[in-house]
């Protein structure tokens, strides 16, 4: 007889264990409660923007949401490349009607963390919670930043929202054909057309369910009162200073049962965690420390258990590929991970100088891309905490090809020849003109920060070598974002982090119909568009991935992006921190971690205890 793994907490545990032994419940799993003395203290480098899943795409909002809420699916913590697994879904969904219908069976006995809104009663998660939560993405009142995840995809959902807009209020009770709770634990979603990447949406923190009663009670302040079913609950939210999470007493608890991938640190992680109950750590203390020096010193002082995103002060802790001897002597270890992201510079295809598809325009763009040495950017401005990407799809993402080489490699000589060949003549002052004799000046938009200034200088010097005069125009990120969205920037540097680990999430940034939405260069190539549309119709397969490769090559030939870098994120860990590993897509690792209190308490807290 098997009993579903529930938390048998504190005083109750021993008695029930004894009963289980007496009655011979061999497969009865007794899961230890998390130790409330075990605290993970860490820092984030910017403020969150609240925890309403539909409202914020802020990285740290997503991190906390992931720790507090549970989406239907998640990723295997250790598997590389990333692998989707069920979370509150009992199993992976059944997909029918040639990829149009998804049916999820939701686990029974999953409860939301306690909150005043429940009046002391336990509140079970049901399929209707997902229906309500997904409808909110299209409700204009919430102006969701994640609307695009569902926009135009689910049968009847947009029509429901349009009806609400007309009448001034959406009707959450209204039935939507494509989004239904078939019964208490069954959720059925019907798509308008097949979307083989739609499954990833159900693993995103944005799609964790919210409690309707809580939304109705807290209104727009729901972001400060998020209630979830995951291992942690929001205990204290001191905006701008600290977020405290505490183990959710209603979390069902699951065994830590992951297998090592072929990454070197995995064997030790698995050895230290295998068989333990998730979560082990009772509390998580998230401090907001914006400056890297402050963050590193707080870690070195013993105020933090681990530290992350300190690449700009690498000289303070790095020695070669390791750590400075004094840190090694203190038992501190370093773990590197590479973000599933890429930076890039785009050129505007609607601009009179950089835009167009004629040969001389292509030559100009490619010459500019060939003039810039991304390796230098990675080594200098990025302090060797980045790897250069050869394609638009970064490593760790499906569709990445390790042996792909961009045709626009750094080669100023070839760039000069290309410009000479296509009539960009040099004047007496050394600057080139356009083939029709007009001035050739390129405007790079950038932000008024020190690091942006360093990139500007690199570009300026690079283009000067091929006779192109660069003008740097400074503006706030908001201004640049707006202009980019309207295809008004000639050239701008940007970055994209994977929402899900499939190349399509990056390639859509160059899809023509996405201009004025996410395709800021307004590149609109019929060849590329056709390949993209063909790829959408295929599941993950060598055939589809070949299409991805062809698309990147087309971008390369047309000179769409200067492919940038993926940042290396080094984490430093004190002894006693167990189970820590950065996942390319998952944001919150705390529930998979443990703290060895004996080792932790032996850390010389150098001067100050927090």
């Amino acid at each position, binding site marked *: 007889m098997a009993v579903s793994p529930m938390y048998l907490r504190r005083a109750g545990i021993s008695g029930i264990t004894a009963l289980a032994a007496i009655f011979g419940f061999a497969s009865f799993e007794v899961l230890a409660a998390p130790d409330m003395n075990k605290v993970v203290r860490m820092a984030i480098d910017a403020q969150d923007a609240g925890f309403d899943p539909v409202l914020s795409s802020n990285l740290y909002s997503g991190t906390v949401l992931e720790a507090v809420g549970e989406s239907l699916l998640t990723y295997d913590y250790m598997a590389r490349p990333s692998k989707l697994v069920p979370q509150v879904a009992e199993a992976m969904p059944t997909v029918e009607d040639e990829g149009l219908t998804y049916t999820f069976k939701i686990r029974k006995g999953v409860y939301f963390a306690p909150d005043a809104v429940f009046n002391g009663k336990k509140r079970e998660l049901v399929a209707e919670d997902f229906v309500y939560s997904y409808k909110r993405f299209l409700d204009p009142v919430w*102006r969701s930043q994640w609307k695009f995840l569902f926009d135009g995809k689910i049968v009847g959902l947009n029509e429901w929202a349009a009806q609400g807009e007309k009448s001034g209020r959406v009707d959450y009770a209204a039935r939507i054909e494509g989004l239904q709770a078939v019964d208490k634990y069954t959720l059925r979603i019907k798509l308008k057309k097949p979307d083989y990447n739609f499954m990833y949406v159900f693993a995103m923190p944005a799609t964790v369910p919210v409690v309707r009663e809580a939304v109705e009670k807290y209104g727009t302040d729901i972001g400060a009162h998020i209630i979830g079913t995951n291992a942690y609950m929001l205990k204290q939210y001191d905006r701008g200073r600290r977020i405290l999470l505490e183990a959710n007493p209603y979390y069902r608890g699951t065994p830590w049962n992951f297998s090592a991938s072929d990454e070197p640190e995995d064997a030790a992680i698995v050895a230290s965690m295998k068989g333990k109950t998730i979560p082990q750590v009772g509390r998580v203390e998230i401090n907001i420390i914006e400056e890297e*020096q402050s963050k590193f010193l707080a870690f070195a002082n013993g105020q933090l258990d681990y530290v992350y995103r300190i690449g700009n002060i690498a000289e303070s802790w790095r020695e070669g590929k390791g750590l400075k001897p004094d840190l090694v002597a203190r038992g501190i270890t370093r773990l590197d991970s590479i973000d599933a992201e890429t930076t890039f510079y785009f050129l505007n295809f609607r601009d009179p100088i950089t835009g167009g598809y004629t040969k001389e325009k292509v030559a100009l763009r490619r010459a500019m891309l060939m003039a810039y040495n991304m390796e230098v950017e990675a080594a200098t401005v990025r302090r060797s905490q980045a790897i250069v990407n050869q394609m638009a799809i970064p490593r760790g993402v499906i569709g990445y090809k390790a042996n792909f080489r961009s045709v626009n490699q750094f080669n100023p000589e070839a760039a000069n020849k290309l410009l000479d060949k296509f009539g960009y003549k040099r004047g007496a002052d050394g600057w080139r003109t356009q083939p029709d004799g007009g001035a050739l000046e390129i405007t790079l938009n950038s932000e008024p920060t020190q690091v942006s200034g360093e990139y500007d200088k690199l570009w300026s010097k690079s283009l000067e070598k091929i006779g192109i005069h660069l003008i740097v125009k400074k503006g706030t*990120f908001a201004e640049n*974002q707006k202009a980019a*969205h309207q295809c008004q920037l000639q050239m701008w540097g940007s970055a994209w982090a994977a929402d899900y680990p499939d190349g399509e999430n990056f390639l859509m940034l160059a899809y023509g119909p996405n201009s004025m939405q996410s395709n800021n260069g307004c590149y609109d190539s019929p060849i590329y568009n056709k390949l993209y549309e063909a790829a959408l119709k295929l599941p993950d397969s060598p055939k589809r991935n070949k299409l991805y490769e062809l698309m990147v090559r087309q971008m390369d030939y047309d000179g769409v992006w200067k492919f940038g870098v993926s940042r290396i994120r080094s984490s430093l860990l004190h002894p006693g921190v167990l189970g820590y590993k950065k996942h390319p897509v998952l944001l919150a690792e705390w529930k998979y971690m443990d703290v060895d209190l004996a080792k932790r308490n032996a850390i010389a807290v150098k001067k100050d205890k927090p």
Partner: protein
Amino acid sequence: MSSFILRRLWQMIPTMLGVVLLVFFLFSFVGGDPAYLLAGKISNKEQIENIRTQLGINQPYYVQLWIFIKQILTGDFGVSWATNEPVSHIIATRIGPSLTVLIPIMIIEAVLAVLVALGVAYVRGSLTDRAIMVICTVAMSVSLLVYIIIVGQYVLAYQFGWFPVQGWGESFSENLFHYSLLPILLGVAVGIAPNTRLYRTFILDEINQDYVRTARAKGLSEHKVMLKHVLRNALIPIITNLMIYLPSLLIGHFLIERFFSIPGIGREVILAVERSDFPVIKAITVYVAAATMLSNLAADLLYKAVDPRVQLK
């Protein structure tokens, strides 16, 4: 005096109106469009328009201006566009940490700057005077503040362990006597320089006056001359300077707050500007404008208290 105060309060209304118009038009025309930030990574035209409608920024300017004025009159600036946190909550929770650090900085800095200025003015032209003035000039560079914070934090907090590296606690006393000590020390170390130079000039202006010569001729001690006569007469410009500084307490100190992880208003101001979070910017601007006018009034009243010859008209 009461009629003077009433008149001054009455005069604040058109001044405030001017501030409101200036802030409103500045933000409306050059403040960026928050809709693009709020729309997230991927958005279309309809979404942007929907956000504008909800925020009310696509309404005619006169309507938006009227809403702004109503907000000032009611003191309710709504919620932050970026986080939905009520603006009143943002200000109420962030102003305390800023003041915990900035008020001691202001007081210590003022006392020390006056004393040092008196000292160097007394030995004017000497090597000590010149050396201190050179140090003050160097210290007036803004970038120096960054270096002083970085070095101070590393050496005094991390290496010597005299102070916490960063952080903020739950109680006022813990924050003032534990977490704020180093930020206060560094803030005073840098902020004292310009004031010392300024106050020295004020004091020198007085030292050369005839009444000082007369006081000395009457046989008064140098101590009395400097503290009773010179300082008292130099106090009017010093008070003016202090009162100018007072409203800036409301906008915090971005660098100090950032390096020491102090959850103050300075970080919020910068964030609000970056996010084009107009409700927060509007509220803080209005409060600072009101505080500036009130502190000017307070300065005028203090002039009268310090110097009976001053007539309040």
